[in-house]
């Protein structure tokens, strides 16, 4: 099939790519395409005259210099080639002049030339420069011209070239190729590879660039130039780098196509679907890339066709062909003395476009052009470096699996993994000896306060010593466990110190924990002594065989008060802490004295502790963090206030801080929030120096709250598994610090430790890439008591320690936590490894979605999980919220804040989460999401009207449970259902002028029945989508596209927020009364009256979507001077296309017109809408009638006969034609109103005849292009919402 049939001689049709560029140009937004420029320098071996002569010869021979575009009625552009139009070379005085002419080059696509040719002297020779509009050609065309010029300079006569004809696949081939691509690109198998984005980053129009260059030596090292094309190696390297960044081997990105034309544009992209594996060698990855490239090209299609096909789905990716695009090009060879000073500028498609350009001197340049709002510049810069490392290492170490190619250099890993800087030498003594020091130095200073009782350092030490001597008598010594089953308080601390002084290892036991748990701990650790109280004796498990000491019996009575003379080896156990694992029995983590003492000294310096520190440690003694926070102040000579009960109210806590003059507090995150809320309510917060916290992910809002309300200058977020001793990582910041991310950063390691983010092959992840957090260095535990296998599994050899710190034989603990390095080298927490979900190739952290759900009003608990029911995987959110919280509202709230791939497919509101007998969440008992279920049966109908309506609704919604008090939309009613329901109801009650407005106002059977009974249906055309409240903004009026019921605006309305009132107008076609020859001015009359009554003399804004753009324009014209229209947002508004544009004469093959006319007559005899059609046809003039026949002939489907119901195909068809007739009569007037216009990427790719509003208003701006959406879906598109809101805010603010 050729699309060039029927054209006048000398005119050629444009390719889909050329059309798309013209559409971009027309709406004033050429990006992502760019004017192509080339600068060619010729040295002094050629004179100016020779250059001029050669250039003139090339200009005379190449068709691009004589090309023009001609617009026909309906907007179709055709390319003409006329010798009379040929441009000539312009001579300028200096190369500066060339630069300014190139920079200011503008092209008028309607009849102007598409190219500019310049010549000027430059240092050491002359420069010839060309600027070319992308609709006329790409860089390959310019390179071809440069080569021709070189040939001409060498005396060759350029031969005349003709414009290459279009070679488009025929319809059958197109269909077959689309069938090939669809399953590859539907997002379920092949990951559309992406680079890590900024937190809450948005893709706006701004782009940025970064480059990286390998000199020819480095390039030679990186490219094994044997046999394989350059693009294969580059695409393989990019693929491997993307696999390393995404953790996904089946991935795709777009690759540039080889230039096939030298006379017109042939640049395009195709998706490249790679199946890579980290175990492959680089040569294998190259072989796979070669295969995939061949496969892609064997199914080549203009990318516009693919894009249009993919964007039909509402949930299509923003960049369906590839978020990343790679172009690989080689500089054209030119004779000596000629130099190409410019590089290609392929279309900056996708989130990041990469260009690899091999210079003829052998150097390889890598350029990235990326969306500035999405990426940290440093991240893109590093990615380019990582691509070159993959290439170089993959080529040189051919046996290395690609998953093991180091992306980070040693120095980079050294910096990223490094702990807080601290060069202080630690005291080698164990912690209890450091604490005992102060009993000698400052015996009278306070050490502990609990329940109103104050102990000095001297008193604490004496008591601990006496008990320690008793323990020694009982045989406590190295590696002997002493359990402390005493409630938190001074005596518990004393008993712990006694156990340490005796050389034993203490085990904290909570008296109120279940007996079975405590029994397991006592036997597992073979506790030799249990220190407790008489009142807890009955909770002690029988038969442990341990010595029992009750503190009430003064077990240390009569013992010496002096420090016992025990020697502590640094590898000796100090304590065993039992962690409450989520499954199975608690595991005892054994920690040794050496690392413990070092950790505490290092931490004391990070926390800036001193003898003046007085800490309120709120963390329980069953967690190791709780012990760090009393040991720290005591070992510095300071003091701790130990809470005497597990639960203090915020009021009690603040009172204690004030009473005892605390300056530090360490508190679980959840409790800290209560404190901050209390402080916010009362305006009172005690003077504190430092709050430290940890235990769960800390959201930005919570951090802001405590940062603001608690008024402490220093905040520390502590993180650490028990296995790596207390808090191996901290994030220490001044109050008021902001951070990017769902959770507060975990910070960096403390002391002689290092923190790493590693991928599944133990390779360090680049900054921004998610991996498992590993902690290594000195501060790791000995392991799990009695579990050598588990210890060996979790504590693994440290491959980095020997290199970075000369630490041989060290171990790493793999935490099971996901994290990523941030730009500043701190680590961000992302969730648990075992809870991470992979869906459609995306790695999803349910925690991030849960955080978004929890931020919604009324939601008290949230859980997001991946369900697999009947083989179908989907994300489902469960929330605990009051019944008035609607699932639909939660979903819309998530839509406005989360990327598409993170949206759950369903949300279920529960009264409470189901739990099993152990009070743990019972996942199996979570209900399957489905249609919204009622708690009880729906309310039955009373009376015939209710019964009739209910029957219609139940049938159309397909929900037999529905009752007369249920909301139409909440029960699953959609816009189309609403139309069907209205049609049926109107037929039932022909006397009542029901419109969709009635369904909005009275969305239950009962309320609607009342209206019908009273005969007071509104017949209204305006629907308040969001009312005016206090402090609200001026009204936004939305003008409907064809058949728009206003429900389409709900997502936008939500995005704009509560204080933006919105009114939507109903499309006039949404009823069956068909009036002919209605004018645009009549259509808007009702809207205008409404606006006039509501907003006369006041500011407001309009939104016109599709055909609604014309209505908005006409309304604005009629309301001129009456209302203050601050902005008209024009959303994808098209002018009449060549189908029905006045003057667009249709082409018919011989005999075709008569055949079509007969077909039409035949159809009219069958349709129930015959009368309406005949009236419509009668209103057509001769040309319009021919256009109608042509339109029928172009329809692939048989003509519809299912009218006249509003939701039928035939009705839609009738409305479309009727509308075209109305439109033909309308002339857009010049108006002085601000216009912000928005175009869907798909409409541009189809080359639709979009209205350029700058022609009608001097206050209109170029369109904002919204990629990845089409004419229908743009109104619900997040990116569109963001851009529309920005424009609206600017218009209202200005």
């Amino acid at each position, binding site marked *: 099939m050729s699309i060039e049939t029927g054209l006048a001689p000398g005119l050629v049709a444009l390719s889909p790519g050329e059309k798309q560029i013209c559409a971009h140009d027309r709406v004033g937004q050429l990006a992502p395409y760019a004017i192509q420029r080339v600068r060619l320098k010729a040295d002094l071996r050629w004179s100016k005259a020779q250059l001029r002569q050669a250039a003139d010869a090339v200009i005379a021979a190449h068709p691009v210099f004589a090309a023009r575009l001609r617009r026909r009625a309906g907007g179709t552009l055709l390319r003409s080639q006329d010798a009379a139009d040929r441009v000539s070379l312009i001579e300028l005085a200096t190369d500066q002049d060339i630069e300014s002419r190139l920079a200011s080059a503008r092209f008028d696509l309607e009849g102007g030339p598409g190219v500019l040719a310049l010549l000027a002297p430059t240092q050491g020779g002359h420069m010839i420069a060309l600027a070319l509009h992308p609709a006329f050609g790409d860089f390959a065309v310019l390179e071809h011209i440069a080569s021709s010029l070189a040939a001409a300079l060498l005396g060759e006569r350029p031969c005349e070239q003709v414009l290459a004809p279009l070679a488009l696949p025929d319809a059958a081939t197109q269909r077959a190729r689309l069938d090939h691509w669809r399953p590859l690109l539907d997002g379920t198998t092949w990951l559309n590879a992406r680079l890590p984005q900024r937190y809450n980053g948005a893709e706006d129009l701004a782009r940025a660039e970064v480059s990286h260059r390998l000199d020819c030596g480095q390039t030679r090292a990186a490219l094994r130039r044997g046999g394989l094309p350059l693009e294969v190696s580059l695409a393989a390297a990019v693929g491997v780098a993307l696999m390393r960044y995404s953790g996904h081997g089946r991935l795709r990105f777009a690759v540039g196509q080889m230039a096939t034309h030298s006379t017109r544009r042939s640049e395009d992209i195709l998706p490249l679907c790679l199946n890579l594996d980290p175990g492959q060698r680089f040569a294998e990855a190259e072989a796979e890339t070669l295969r995939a490239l061949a496969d892609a090209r064997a199914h080549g299609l203009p990318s516009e066709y693919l894009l249009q096909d993919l964007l039909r789905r509402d949930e299509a990716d923003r960049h369906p062909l590839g978020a990343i695009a790679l172009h690989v090009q080689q500089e054209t060879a030119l004779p000596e003395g000629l130099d190409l000073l410019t590089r290609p500028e392929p279309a900056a498609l996708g989130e990041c476009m990469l260009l690899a350009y091999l210079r003829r001197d052998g150097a390889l340049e890598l350029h990235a052009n990326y969306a500035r709002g999405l990426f940290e510049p440093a991240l893109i810069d590093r990615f380019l470096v990582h691509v070159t490392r993959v290439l170089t290492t993959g080529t040189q170490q051919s046996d290395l699996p690609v998953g*093991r190619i180091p992306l980070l250099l040693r120095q980079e890993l050294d910096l990223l993994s490094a702990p807080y800087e601290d060069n202080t030498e630690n005291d080698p003594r164990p912690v209890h000896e450091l604490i005992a020091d102060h009993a000698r130095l400052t015996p009278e200073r306070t050490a502990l306060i609990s329940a109103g009782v104050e102990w000095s350092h001297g008193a604490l030490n004496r008591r601990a010593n006496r008990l320690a001597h008793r323990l020694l008598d009982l045989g406590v010594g190295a590696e002997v466990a002493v359990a402390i089953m005493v409630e938190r308080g001074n005596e518990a601390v004393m008993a712990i110190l006694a156990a340490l002084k005796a050389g034993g290892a203490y085990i904290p036991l909570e008296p109120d924990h279940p007996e079975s748990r405590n029994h397991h701990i006592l036997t597992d650790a073979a506790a030799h002594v249990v220190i407790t109280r008489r009142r807890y004796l009955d909770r002690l498990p029988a038969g442990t065989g341990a010595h029992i000491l009750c503190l009430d019996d003064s077990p240390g009575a009569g013992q010496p008060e002096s420090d016992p003379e025990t020697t502590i*080896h640094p590898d000796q156990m100090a304590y065993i802490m039992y962690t409450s694992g989520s499954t199975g029995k608690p595991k005892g983590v054994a920690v040794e004295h050496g690392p413990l003492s070092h950790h505490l000294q290092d931490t004391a310096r990070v926390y800036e502790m001193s003898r003046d520190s007085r800490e309120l440690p709120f963390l329980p003694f069953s967690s190791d963090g709780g012990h760090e926070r009393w040991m720290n102040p005591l070992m510095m000579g300071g003091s701790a206030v130990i809470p005497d009960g597990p639960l203090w109210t915020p009021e009690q806590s603040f009172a204690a801080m004030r009473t005892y003059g605390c300056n530090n507090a360490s508190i679980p995150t959840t409790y800290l929030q209560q404190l901050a809320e209390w402080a916010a309510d009362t305006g009172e917060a005690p003077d504190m120096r430092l709050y430290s916290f940890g235990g769960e992910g800390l959201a930005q809002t919570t951090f802001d709250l405590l940062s603001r309300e608690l008024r402490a200058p220093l905040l520390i977020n502590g993180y650490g598994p028990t296995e790596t001793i207390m808090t191996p990582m901290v994030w220490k910041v001044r109050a008021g610090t902001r951070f990017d991310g769902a959770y507060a950063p975990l910070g960096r390691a403390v002391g002689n430790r290092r923190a790493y983010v590693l991928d599944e092959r133990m390779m360090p992840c680049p900054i921004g890439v998610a991996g498992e957090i590993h902690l290594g260095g000195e501060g790791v535990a000995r392991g799990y008591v009695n579990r050598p296998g588990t210890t*060996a*599994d979790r504590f*693994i*050899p440290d*491959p980095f*320690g020997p290199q970075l710190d000369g630490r041989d034989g060290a171990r790493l603990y793999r935490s099971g936590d996901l994290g990523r390095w941030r730009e500043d080298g701190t680590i961000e927490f992302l969730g648990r490894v075992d809870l991470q979900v992979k869906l459609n190739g995306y*790695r999803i952290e349910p925690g991030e979605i849960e955080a978004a759900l929890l931020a919604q009003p009324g939601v008290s608990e949230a859980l997001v999980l991946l369900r697999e029911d009947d083989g179908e995987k989907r994300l489902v959110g469960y929330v605990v919220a009051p019944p008035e919280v609607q699932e639909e509202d939660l979903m819309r709230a998530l839509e406005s804040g989360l990327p598409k791939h993170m949206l759950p497919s369903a949300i279920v509101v529960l009264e409470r989460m189901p739990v099993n007998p152990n009070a743990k969440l019972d996942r199996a008992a979570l209900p399957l999401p489905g249609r919204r279920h009622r708690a009880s049966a729906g309310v039955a109908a009373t009376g015939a009207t209710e019964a009739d309506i209910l029957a219609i609704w139940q049938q159309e919604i397909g929900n037999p449970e529905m009752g007369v008090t249920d909301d139409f939309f909440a029960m699953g009613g959609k816009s189309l259902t609403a139309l069907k329901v209205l049609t049926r109801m109107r037929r039932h009650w022909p006397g009542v002028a029901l419109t969709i407005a009635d369904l909005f106002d009275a969305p239950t059977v009962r309320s609607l029945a009342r209206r019908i009974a009273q005969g007071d249906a509104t017949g209204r055309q305006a629907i308040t989508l969001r009312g005016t409240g206090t402090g609200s903004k001026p009204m936004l009026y939305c003008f409907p596209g064809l058949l728009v019921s206003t429900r389409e605006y709900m997502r936008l309305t939500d995005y704009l927020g509560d204080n933006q009132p919105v009114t939507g107008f109903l499309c006039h076609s949404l009823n069956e009364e068909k009036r002919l020859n209605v004018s645009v001015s009549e259509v808007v009359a009702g809207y205008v009256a409404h606006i006039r009554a509501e907003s006369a003399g006041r500011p407001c804004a309009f939104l016109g979507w599709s055909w609604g753009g014309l209505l908005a324009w006409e309304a604005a014209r009629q309301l001129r001077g009456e209302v203050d229209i601050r902005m008209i947002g024009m959303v994808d508004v098209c002018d009449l296309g060549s189908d029905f544009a006045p003057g667009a004469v249709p082409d018919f093959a011989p005999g075709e017109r008569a055949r079509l006319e007969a077909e039409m007559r035949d159809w009219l005899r069958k349709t129930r809408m015959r009368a309406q059609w005949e009236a419509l046809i009668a209103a057509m003039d001769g040309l319009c009638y021919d256009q109608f026949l042509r339109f029928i002939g172009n329809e692939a489907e048989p003509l519809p006969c299912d009218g006249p119901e509003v939701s039928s195909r035939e009705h839609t068809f009738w409305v479309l034609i009727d509308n075209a007739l109305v439109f033909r009569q309308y002339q857009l007037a010049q108006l002085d109103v601000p216009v912000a216009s928005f175009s869907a990427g798909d409409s541009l790719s189809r080359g639709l005849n979009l209205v350029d509003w700058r022609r009608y208003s001097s206050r209109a701006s170029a369109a904002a292009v919204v990629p990845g959406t089409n004419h229908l879906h743009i109104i619900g598109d997040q990116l569109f919402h963001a851009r529309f809101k920005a424009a609206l805010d600017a218009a209202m603010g200005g």
Partner: protein
Amino acid sequence: MTRSDPGQWISVQNNEGRWSVWPAELPVPAGWRAMSAAASREACLAEIETRWTDPRPNSLKEATS
């Protein structure tokens, strides 16, 4: 995400007598030595469960013996 098994593992021990496992295809980090033939990760861990009977590091054993 489960740790993808690169295949074969070996049991290793460090200079303090602590045990662990390591991918057979990678060089053993300094300070560790191979203690078994290549096997599955589970098999190596099961073997360690029986062979690592004294949890104390070598230095401590030497100091207290």
